[in-house]
Structure formats: C-alpha cells, structure tokens
C-alpha cells in the first residue's frame, strides 16, 4: 500500500494539519483585495410594442455585468484581487432610493445603475452616495451629460447627441443632405429629434420637412393607408425617424410615397452594440454571451460589461479598491479599455462620457462605424461625436488638470505651453471651419 503516507494516524498530526490549513486560509484571505460593486435596477412593466417579433427581455444588463465580473476575477486570481457583485433588483412598485439605502452598503464604492435619468440623479445626490462612483449603463440623456451632469456619474452608453452625429456623418458621406424628420409623441422622441436637429446644423445639412406622427399605432389600420398620405407631396433625400420605443418607425420603409432610405431609431440605427457586429474580436464576446445568457447581447449588457470591466482594469492597474484612486485613473491618460470596437475606449474628463465608436446597423448587416472616415479632430476622432469639450456645459472638478495633461501630451514635441483656454480656442476654430463659419 504505497498510498499509506497520506493517511495521518496521530491525533497530534491531525490537529497540526488543521492548524496549518487554518493559517493558510487566513493568510490567503488577508492577501486578497476585495472590490465591492453593486448593480441596481428596477423591474419594468412590459411596454407596448409594434409586434411580438422581439420578445421583451426583463432585466437587460445583468448578464453583461456578470460576465465582466467573471473576467475580472480571472485576472484577479493572478493579481490577488476579488470582485464581488451585489445585485439589487427593485420590484416594479418598489422605492429605488429606499432599496439603495438598505441594500448598497456604505463601504461599496462602485455602483452600476440600470435606471432612468430621474432615479439615477436621485441616487447620485444622496448624502450616502457622496463617496460612491456611479456607472450609468442605461441613459442616453444629453442633459445628464451637460447642464444636469453629476460629478460622481460615468456614462457608458453613447448619448443621443453622439448617436445623431454618427448618423449625420454617414448621411453626409452619402450626400443625403435633405432630411425629412418624423417625430413621435413621447418626450424621449422629442429629445432624439433635438439631437438630430443639432447634428444637421453641426454638419451643415438641412431638415427640409418635419412632421409629428399623431396617427394610431395599429399596424393593421395604419401602415398601408396612413404612411403614403403622411409622406405625400414632400421631397427629401432621407427619412429620419425619432421613435425610441419603436411604435411606428418600422412603417415607413417600403411604404413612403417616394422611395427613400429610412434612418434613425429604425432602419439604419446608431447603437453601441448590435448582433451584426463581429469585427475586432467582437464575435468572441458575442459567442460567450450567447452561451451564458441564451440570448444575444444587448446594448445595456454591453454597457454593464464595460462598466465592470472599467472597474476591473483600474483596480488591477492601481492596485486600489478605493473610489478616488479608481476615478482618477479612469479619467486620466493611462486608462484604455478594450471594448471590441477597434479603438481604445476612454472617458471624457469633462462629463464622464465614455468615448466610443458608434455602430450604424441595419437589421442584418453592419453598414458603417462612426466616426466615419474623413471626420477629423485634433485630439481624437471619437470626439467628433457628441458634445465636445468647448460645447459641453458640464465641468468636472479635476477636469482642467486632466485636460492640460492631455494637451501637453499632444503638444510635447513643440515645447509650447498650452493652456486649457488655448485648447478651447483651437477647438472652436476647428468647429467654425467645420461648419463653414455659420
């Protein structure tokens, strides 16, 4: 019996064995740095939909965070760090603030939110949230990134302005300069339309017609009869639709009076993530996601994935699990996140928006990726999308410091001292040229 050596016979040896075991355990536990992250969302009522083609997904987003935490912990095995995700799902009738106060512990520095702008602002303004950093994985709200901005929120998804600019760049490339804008009845549709008008102005194109869709949302009654009449007698290059909920936008293709492409919230859509996206290693995360979730990755999943990965990346690099160190790193120059879109992703220090390419996707093919080639920028072409530094009405503390660092890095070869004012002047000049001095 050669295996006998493994059998410990003496009780002294046994107790010694357990002491050693206990010791190793404590040593290990002490060495592991724990990073606490909370994920908070609220269950949603199933909204009205145009059709039953796409099943409603309750709690989009959770799965993206889960995968990123697993990825972080794989790295953590090698670096002695452990990432813990506390998942808080508020019921439909529940109170988000109350649940936050109860279930997100005081020592949790990072909170990933899958909540509308209003609730996110409530949370971010709480006294107990002062030392927390929020990762907004849901909103596209431009105000929240400008006049309503909070210094403790980072935004993972492209804003409406970024999406509209992405569309506009593509339309400009295609020379579709005369737009027919169709706007839905909801407040969100108005905001989307506002971003589109801004983009048209910014890139020197024209909204030649604008109409509000006030008809019913019943495809059997509406599509065949109303759409031709609604679009009759107008001349334009492209029909741009603002219908965020997807209640009527799909009607226009093939039914409008004159044959023109449909673009916007339907037709060719600007998005952070899409099932047709396979380049730059994207197919790997698409496959991994499908295997684990049993469905395709959605924008919100991508956003929560990026949120948790950002934290992971910063924690590994800084060896810190503290809010301020991580925030400084995320807003600094060293941070570069791989997000499967061919360019390193970084945060805009002036409003916490994640810089990223925007995909322009049709139902079954990826048509283009913005920034479209040829749209230039002195610092990074990603800043041709959305509110650039001089346009933004949000000013983060510490932003000036970071900005000067960026500029001096970009200008170190010339040895010229660049102030933030000089940079802003340069950017303004650049935009004036771009807009033909309008």
């Amino acid at each position, binding site marked *: 019996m050669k295996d006998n050596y493994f059998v410990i016979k003496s009780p002294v040896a046994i107790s010694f064995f357990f002491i050693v075991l206990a010791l190793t355990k404590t040593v290990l536990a002490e060495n592991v740095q724990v990073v606490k992250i909370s994920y908070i969302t609220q269950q949603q009522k199933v909204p009205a939909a145009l059709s039953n083609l796409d099943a409603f997904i309750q709690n989009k987003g959770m799965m993206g965070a889960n995968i990123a935490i697993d990825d972080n912990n794989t790295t953590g095995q090698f670096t002695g760090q452990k990432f813990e995700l506390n998942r808080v799902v508020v019921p439909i009738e529940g109170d988000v603030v109350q649940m936050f106060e109860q279930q997100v512990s005081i020592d949790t520095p990072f909170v990933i939110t899958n909540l509308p702008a209003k609730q996110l602002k409530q949370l971010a303004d709480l006294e107990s949230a002062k030392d927390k950093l929020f990762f907004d994985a849901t909103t596209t709200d431009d105000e929240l990134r400008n006049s309503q901005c909070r210094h403790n929120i980072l935004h993972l998804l492209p804003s409406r302005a970024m999406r509209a600019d992405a569309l506009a760049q593509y339309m400009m490339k295609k020379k579709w300069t005369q737009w027919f804008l169709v706007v839905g009845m909801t407040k969100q549709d108005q905001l989307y339309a506002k971003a589109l008008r801004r983009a048209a102005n910014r890139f020197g194109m024209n909204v030649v017609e604008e109409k509000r869709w006030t008809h019913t949302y019943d495809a059997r009654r509406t599509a065949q009869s109303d759409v031709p009449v609604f679009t009759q007698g107008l001349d334009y290059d492209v029909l741009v639709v603002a219908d965020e909920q997807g209640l009527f936008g799909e009607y226009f293709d093939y039914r409008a009076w004159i044959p023109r492409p449909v673009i916007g919230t339907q037709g060719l859509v600007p998005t952070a993530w899409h099932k047709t996206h396979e380049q730059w*290693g994207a197919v790997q995360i698409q496959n991994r996601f499908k295997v684990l979730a049993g469905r395709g990755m959605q924008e919100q999943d991508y956003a929560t994935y990026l949120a948790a990965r950002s934290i992971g990346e910063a924690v590994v690099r800084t060896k810190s699990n503290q809010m301020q160190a991580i925030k400084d790193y995320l807003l600094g120059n060293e941070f*570069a996140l791989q997000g499967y879109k061919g360019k390193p992703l970084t945060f805009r220090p002036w409003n916490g928006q994640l810089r990223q390419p925007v995909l322009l996707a049709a139902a079954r093919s990826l048509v283009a990726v913005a920034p479209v080639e040829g749209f230039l920028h002195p610092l990074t072409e990603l800043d041709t999308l959305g509110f650039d530094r001089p346009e933004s009405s949000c000013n983060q503390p510490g932003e000036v410091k970071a900005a000067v660092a960026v500029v001096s890095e970009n200008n170190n070869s010339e040895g010229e001292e660049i102030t933030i004012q000089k940079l802003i002047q340069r950017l303004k000049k650049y935009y004036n040229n771009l807009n033909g001095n309008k």
Partner: protein
Amino acid sequence: MKLSFLGIAVISTLLSTAVYAETVIVTLEKDNALAIIDPVEGKLIKTVEVGQRPRGIVLSPDNKFLYVATSDDNTVKIIDADTFEVLGQLPSGEDPETFALNPAGDRLYVSNEDDHLVTVIDVINKKEVAKIKVGIEPEGIAVSSDNQWVVSASETTNMIHWIDVKTNQIVDNTLVDARPRAANFTADNKQLWVTSEMAGTLMVLDVATKKIIKKIKLDIQGLTSDKIQPVGVVIDKERRWGYVAIGPANRVAVINAQTLAVEKFLLVGQRVWNLAFSPDQKRLYTTNGRSNDISIINLENHKVMKSVGVGRFPWGIVSKP
C-alpha cells in the same frame, strides 16, 4: 547541339532556383486559400485552397510541413510545404487562430480564444496532450528557442502567462498594457517583446525576472493615438533590429534592438498585422489585411521595395528557403 542547349537551359534553371529559391506563403482569410509568392521576383505564383478562414500559419523546423489554422473548420491542417497538399489535421480545439511550434517541431501550442485555454498537441501522434487554463481570450503565443518557456498573451486579462514547458503549468504572470496581441522572444531568449494594441505600446520584458524593462509608446506624427495599434513583432537573430506592425496606422516601426529607440516608420499597406523574415533575414514581409497585398521591405537599407497583391484579407505569413 540541341541537347547541349537544353542542358544549359536546365543548368541555368537549376542555378537560378538554387540561388533564389525562396517561397513566401500567406493565408488568405476571406479566400479560404494560401497564396504562394516568389518574393524575389515579387510575383504571386498561385493560390491553393486550404479550408475555411485560414489564419495562423507556421513552418516546421525541417521546412517540410506547414501548419495552418482553418478557424471555421475548427482544426489545424498539416500541409506538404512543397506540393501544398493537405496531409492531415490536428485536434486544435475550437476556433484556432494563433499557435506556436516548439524548436523540435513535435509540440504545437494553440490559443483557444473562446475557451480561455492553451491546447498542447503532440504533432507526431496528432493527439492533444494537455489543456492549460489561461486568462480571458488568449491570443499571442510563443515558445522560447531553448524550449524552456511558452508564453501566452490574454487579450482581456491583459497578461502574459509564463508556462513551463516541462510541466505545462503556469509558473508566473506579468501584467501588461491593454489587449496584448503578439509576443516574441529574442534569439538569445533574454527578452520577450510584447505589443499592446489598445495602449499603442511595445513592451520589452526581461525573461529572467519576468518584468517589463522598457515600454515604448509608438507615436506617429500626424496620426491620432487611437490609430496606433501594434500587432505583429519580430526581432532579428543578432538582436540588432526589431520590427512592429502597427495595424491601421499602415506602418511598420523599425526599432533599434540594442538601444530600444524607434528609428523610423515604414509606410506599407493597410491594416498591417503579421510579419515574417526571409530565411537570410535580408527582407521582411508584411501582410496588409485591408489592401489585400504584402509589402516587401529591404532590411539592408530599411526601404519598402515592393507590394504584391495576393488575395482577400492576407493574415498569416511564413517564408521558406
């Protein structure tokens, strides 16, 4: 008279092949084929079908066999390096992309990106020997020429994993810049050069300490930093020069391997990814994925001599004497 003329012709053909015999083989990701090129004439000789989505390619040390990852067939094919006939295949695991051969040519180390594994294959018996769990999305892989280390770069974990060849176990990890793509040892096995696609850097690691001893940020005047995405990296035998392919920057960086200073950038084709030396190391070949060609660089004067159209999405490249 006729005979002797023929004789001269035969001899001269033999001579010319003897002097110039060199073949460059390129995998064409979109054409499902290999492109066979005469680099001296700068001509595409032919293309040969090979399987679905060929990417990584390696030549056996005796120059007799090619190993080609046909990713969508989930296999690594063994191909006769003279006739380009498919001789067999290896159990590579799913979606193989990059791999490395040990110096003896009997072990193949394959990165399985989706499963976060390095698969070790016994090439002679066509059998899987081991699976090594590594970080998320392993990509670049290399074996040191003294057959001591296998290094695997994981793109999402951002690490170089040092695998002991004898035990097939990870013994150390080095945290590197975001999305490491390729890794290569210097011929003396003292250094490991690693590229980071997202940070735009080349990192030089000391093999003895497994630490980064130098980080080179590649900056090109007139290009924004997000276009600087280094991928393939090779270093010459004397460790005089190293070369880095910088993807969408469409350039190859020439680096003094002694001082680790960037000497210059050579403009090649679009989205340059992988690099290969000629056997005599007098030329460097690059695959340019988006312009569908390869560039031939003269290493005596560091000038791009020629580009040769080869087919759609050239990916991997090897050169055979």
